[in-house]
């Protein structure tokens, strides 16, 4: 395996299967996935690791283009430079589980992993920007609270 995400074509196939989730998104909308271990994020210091990491790993980007959501691999140099709207930071086990699920219910798996804490999730834009960019459907599909979650 060349990178933490494995075969990108499998991810692309998964995105193509769920194209309807991204159909409302504006062109240029971007989502990033980074591996916690390759990003230098250490246990118990997730955010510190996230913020300190400078080009230590790869980021899988999903970018909305004319033809739909497209995957690519990029260098990860910290969230400030990632040019993404949403950033997912995944444990190695979570990434493995996602790769396993790519031909099946991968989004359901991502949703469960977020809830279990295997994937952390950051928003780089506010709700109005995300709404305008057409993210609501995607976020809701992952069970993420689009508004507040005080419970």
């Amino acid at each position: 395996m060349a990178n933490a995400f494995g075969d990108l074509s499998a991810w692309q196939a998964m995105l193509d299967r769920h194209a309807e989730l991204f159909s409302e998104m504006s062109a240029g909308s971007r989502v990033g996935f980074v591996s916690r271990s390759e990003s230098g994020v250490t246990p118990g210091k997730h955010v510190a690791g996230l913020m300190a990491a400078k080009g230590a790993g790869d980021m899988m980007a999903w970018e909305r283009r004319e033809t739909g959501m497209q995957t690519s691999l990029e260098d990860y140099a910290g969230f400030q430079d990632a040019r993404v709207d949403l950033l997912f930071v995944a444990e190695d086990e979570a990434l493995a589980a996602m790769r396993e699920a790519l031909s099946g219910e991968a989004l359901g798996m991502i949703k469960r992993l977020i809830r279990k804490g295997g994937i952390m999730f950051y928003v780089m834009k506010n709700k109005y920007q995300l709404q305008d960019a057409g993210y609501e459907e995607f976020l809701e599909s992952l069970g993420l609270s689009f508004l507040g979650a005080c419970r």
Partner: protein
Amino acid sequence: MNRPGEEKLKHLFRPGSIGRFKTKNMVKYGACCVSNYNGRDGFITPRELARVRVIASTGCGIITNQGAYPDPLGEGKAYFRQVAIFDDKFIPQFETIAGYIHDAGAVAIQQILHAGRYGGIDLGYCIQPSVVPQTLPHFRPPRELTKEQIKAIVAQHADAARRAIRAGFDGTEVTSFMGYLLANFNSRFTNQRSDEYGGSVENRGRFMRELIDAVKQATPDSPMLIRLNAAELMDRWGGNSEDECFELMQQAVDCGVDMISVTVGWQEAPESSFGRDVSPGHWNHLSAKAKRLFPKTAIAFGNRLPDPVMADQCIRDGVFDYWEVCRPLLADPELIHKAAEDRLNEVRPCIGSLNCLSRLFRDLPYTCTMNPVLGHEVEPEYAITPAVEKKRIMVIGAGPAGMEAAITARKRGHEVTVFEKSAHIGGNLAAYAANDLARPEDLRSVIDYYRVMADKLGIEVRLNTEANAKFMRSVLHQYDVCLVAAGARTDLGAFRYLEGAELLVDALEVAHGRIKPGHRVVMVGGGMIGLTIAESLTKAGHEVVVVEEEKRVAGDVMPTFKWRHTAWVDELGIRTLTSSRLVKVTSEGATVKNAKGEESFVAADTVLVSSPRKANHDLFHEFQWMVDELHGAGDAVIARGLDAAIHEGYRMGVRI
């Protein structure tokens, strides 16, 4: 203590003290929610003042007024219509509130709330110790505080405290709950600083210590209270461990705070802290630990502890000193008085639906599912006043809308009879409770409340009595008013042209226990009713597939509970076919077509239908010429849910 309940709950109703002030009991009204009733400029409105009068009269020994933001820019402002205390111009209104609280014999505490990570609601940013991106899109992108800004914020808190005391409050409270600025400094999730305000727990607690010192110096004769997390529930995100939380509490104790209010959770925590799925008393161990570690500091606690009897036992057992309660008092402002009068069975229960918070995150004023008057105290139209003309009222349906209307109308002096076609009251709420995976007791407590109040008020409830045209003819001219609150039903007619429609089964029949489905079930409709029944059946061993026409399930579920249903669907392994509709039913199963037009067959022994729902309008047409006044309430008007049923029932009750 001269009321019967005070003797029974003698620990709760014994006097206490905070600083130099005596409290008449051990109940603290917690500033749990910002009401969003106020001006966008931070000024307090008549609506708020009317609400505070009700709060003041709750009978609590200590009353904490809702959090006011202390800075003129509004960086600390968390809610759309939050009150402000950054200038002396606000003092007169706070004087009014302090007066209300003192008139009721309570100790008045003003909370100062700087929301930090959750603030800046009118701005394009929020301020934090470090730039840690948000995990919820509702909140603003972060900016890192400079040391000069930190000092200014500390001074703003001290000024705010000084203003509160000048306005007549007895003490002040600063809060970290739930993830506000104080918590942002304390937590290693949001504090990544490398200066003296970041790093070790000692350094992270520096802001809190400076804050306490400044407030205490500004108001040396007044008690200072602090709300601190005993658990952030953010561990997986790099937040504080429980040990670190208690280490920070120790720092606050060492700084001489007069009370620690122990809290649980952050707004962005991945698990519930006080929702309906959390059992009452679940977090008590955290409070007990605080009490054990800090025996000389008063401990207040109330997270998911809605019951005064449990609270009394906790005080007796040394779990905490003061029962901090808010949401149960939103549902029933008379809770403490009813406890004191040994009338706890008459308490209108808080069911933890968190309707209050669901609305705040849409920048709306908070309301309460159980209390239709909340937020309308200023409006005389919502008051229960004696009816000028006493009427004979028949209510059709003993669900929440009907019972609420009956009780309210009866309180006004009307004669009320409720007609219910089934053998029990509660309507579809009883069926919901029977299938609820969270806390069915909460839902049943609503029905119990209606039963008790109907008995107490002398409302006749005729069970097993179906109201139809024939029945109406038999009681012609015996009633002045007919209120139709017959709820809604599953609209099986919507499928009448479907092949195999005769095999469809109404999901509500299953929910009520009148029909037992086969092992393999297809549930048509993935809204609240369909999901609740699907979850219950799955838990009982059935294999259930949910078919939903919309893109997502749980579309009609309260936002604060939607995540719970979607998580249950995952955990229970319930297959959902969204953007799909039923096209054919046979004795072998159901054929379903998705948005792309692709058909698939789902094997099933029973195909249940939970959606669409149809309001029971028929009675309106049948009764139109048979009674002087004909009204409707709840799902009988438009199929919705519990809060609409209760609120409309009440509004009809106060208007007839």
